[in-house]
């Protein structure tokens, strides 16, 4: 049988267990607002029983382990949804930037219908209307040149701004790559520590929480594949190429110039191109090389067609002094379109006539005005302004698609986060209740110690013949 000292030992181990319990409850409550934290629980087991003639006698309890409540399936779902959310967020943001720079915004204009008065559509319209005003013989070539300059400037500015958006995306990709490499190296470090800590038995709960948070952060930047190993470490690979194996970061991400200053991703060791399809890196690349590149191309095509069509018609015209053959627009695309500088300095050189010496002949101006409604095979058989309106509409659609996908992804992320919170989140009410349980148990065990102490005093007193 246990005897007094055995029972005292039982009581003292119980006190330790209940203390441990309150510590775990305290730990949980302290971390109630830590989003990366998974609640921990004390695993208690009855200690090895003593064989006696009366059968097995219990010897109290022992703390077996402190484990955390975590669902690894949920964790991996959250990682992959983080990649999706990161990607769509990056895409939506880039495209909305482009929309702002494009400058087509409908506002109320005083005395007229609502219109997008400051964008390229309005400026192109002004240009063709100014050509039309010349057909009455009362138009002002200076006003024509002015409206042409506004068109050219708008093209230049939008083109430059879109290039800036692409350049910003490249910078953001580089920053994300640096962050990702840092995360990879952090994960490797944590793997090492976790393996060491768990080698002696038990689970390194707090290190695992930190590692999971780091992995989720990495996932929001690039689509990863995380595989748990038997020794407690997690291997990470990106695009099929191993990046973290056990405690070492064996590889990393690197940017390289895919042509024209557009950055793509390769791995550091072998320089193999990696297809990063998720996360903010993947999203930035998709937006940059997809919708943004398409928008830039459409604008260039539009500018190039405008230059060609106008110049072809215009160069056959004659100005008041009989001069002919000059171009109206200079440049080749949206970035460099401009108005012939000789014409800017002297708008009277405008070649409006179809024959020399006939100042009342405005047939070239009429032909130029008619370009507004002419269908252009290079623009899908649409006119210049129709083609541009289509481009604007396409951008709107691309943004809506990204927004819808983002909303869906965020809804899924929220659901998963809620599930994890249900599973692993701390409830103050629950912890307080547990705390009270352990407190009562502690009181009970302390009472046991007091009782045993009193009993032992009686035993000791029994041996003393002198005291009464």
């Amino acid at each position, binding site marked *: 049988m246990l005897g007094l000292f055995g029972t005292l030992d039982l009581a003292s181990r119980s006190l330790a267990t209940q203390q441990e319990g309150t510590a775990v409850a305290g730990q949980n409550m302290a971390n109630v607002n830590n989003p990366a934290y998974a609640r921990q629980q004390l695993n208690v087991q009855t200690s090895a029983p003593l064989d006696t003639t009366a059968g097995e006698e219990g010897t109290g309890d022992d703390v077996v382990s402190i484990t955390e409540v975590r669902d690894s399936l949920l964790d991996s779902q959250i990682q992959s949804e983080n990649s999706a959310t990161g990607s769509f967020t990056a895409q939506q943001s880039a495209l909305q930037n482009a929309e702002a720079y494009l400058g087509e915004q409908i506002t109320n204009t005083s005395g007229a219908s609502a219109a997008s008065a400051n964008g390229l559509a309005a400026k*192109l319209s002004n240009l063709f209307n100014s050509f039309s005003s010349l057909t009455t013989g009362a138009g002002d070539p200076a006003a024509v040149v002015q409206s042409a300059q506004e068109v050219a400037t708008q093209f230049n500015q939008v083109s430059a701004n879109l290039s800036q958006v692409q350049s910003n995306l490249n910078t953001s990709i580089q920053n994300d790559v640096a962050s990702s490499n840092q995360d990879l190296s952090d994960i490797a470090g944590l793997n090492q520590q976790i393996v060491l800590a768990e080698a002696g038995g038990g689970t390194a709960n707090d290190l695992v929480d930190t590692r999971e948070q780091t992995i989720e952060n990495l996932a929001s930047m690039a689509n990863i594949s995380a595989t748990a190993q038997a020794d407690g470490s997690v291997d990470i690979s990106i695009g099929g190429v191993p990046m973290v194996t056990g405690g070492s970061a064996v590889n990393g991400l690197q940017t390289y110039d895919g042509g024209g200053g557009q950055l793509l991703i390769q791995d550091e060791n072998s320089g193999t191109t990696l297809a990063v399809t998720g996360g903010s890196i993947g999203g930035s690349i998709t937006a940059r090389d997809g919708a943004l590149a398409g928008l830039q191309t459409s604008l260039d095509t539009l500018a190039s067609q405008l230059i060609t069509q106008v110049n072809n018609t215009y160069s056959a015209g004659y100005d008041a002094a009989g001069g002919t053959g000059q171009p109206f627009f200079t440049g080749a695309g949206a970035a460099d379109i401009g108005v012939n500088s000789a014409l800017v300095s002297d708008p009277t050189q405008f070649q409006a006539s179809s024959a020399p010496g006939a100042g009342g002949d405005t047939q070239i101006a009429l032909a130029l005005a008619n370009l507004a409604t002419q269908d252009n095979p290079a623009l899908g058989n649409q006119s210049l302004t129709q083609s541009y309106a289509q481009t604007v509409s396409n951008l709107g659609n691309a943004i809506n698609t990204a927004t819808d996908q983002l909303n869906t992804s965020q809804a899924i992320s929220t659901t998963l986060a*809620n599930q994890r919170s249900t599973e692993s989140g701390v409830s103050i009410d629950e912890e307080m209740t547990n705390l009270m349980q352990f407190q009562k148990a502690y009181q009970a065990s302390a009472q046991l110690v007091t009782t045993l102490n009193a009993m032992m005093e009686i035993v000791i007193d029994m041996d003393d013949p002198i005291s009464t």
Partner: protein
Amino acid sequence: MRVSNSLFTNNFLAQINQLQQQQIQLQNQATTGLKISLPEDDPAGINQVLDLQTQAAANTQYQSNITQLQGAATTAATAMNSLQTIVEQAGEIATEANGTTTSSQLANYATQVGTLIQEALQTANTQDAQGHYIFGGTIDSQPPFVATTDSSGNVQAVNYQGNTEVSESQIGPGQTVSAQIPGANTTGSGPAGLLADSRSGADLFRDLISLQQNLISGNTAAIASTDNPNLTTDENNLVSGIAANGVLQSTLESASTAATQLGASLTTQTSNLTSADLTTTLTQLDQTQTAFQAALQSGEMIMNLSILNYIQ
């Protein structure tokens, strides 16, 4: 289902955020009165709005062109009417000269015709408000009619240095007119010359000069047999020109009416696409605000409940 502290607060924050976003959007619509602002608001709609605004701006330009051309047509009509008066006066002189024998009377008539020639020359060289000569075809920077005078100061010939080309001006979608008139057309094809045209045989200055010369030389027979009938031909030719001007003005009037109607239609179409229905918007805003208040209130109630309130 287990409920943790973070589950409740995260949900609460997400709902508040969503309601605030809705409020901002509706409030924006109510303030601007617009339901489309950016391409992403309605991609198909903005395509149509851009098209409508282009049409509306073009329509405004057509109206401006029409006004300009109406002015030019009026100026031309005034000049043409003056010329018709001159031709009629010359015709009367030609008729009266037939029965006159006094050389002093004939000399008197010759002087009057001389004056008529000068008036006709001046009128034929009318300029518009921009200083363009209106009866030279597309050559408008120099007087279309140039006179050469003999030693006695009488005009002996008037030459036409304009051309027979006219330029078209835009007055509507796919619609053009020309307000230009060649003063003379001896080529046999193209627009009719106002004062001289080989097809009708008219040549006002030739005939006026001939009349003056015949009056000076006293050749009343030639006046009767040649000048008088020629002047009739000249007047008929001029009247055709006046009629054509009338057609032009009427075309411009119709085009102006059509442009006004088109403008109104485009305004309505644009408004249908872009205007927010204020009643609906305000109702939705009210509902959203009510939901927002309810969310805040219920959130506050729940967040205040905790076992800690009850533990001594």
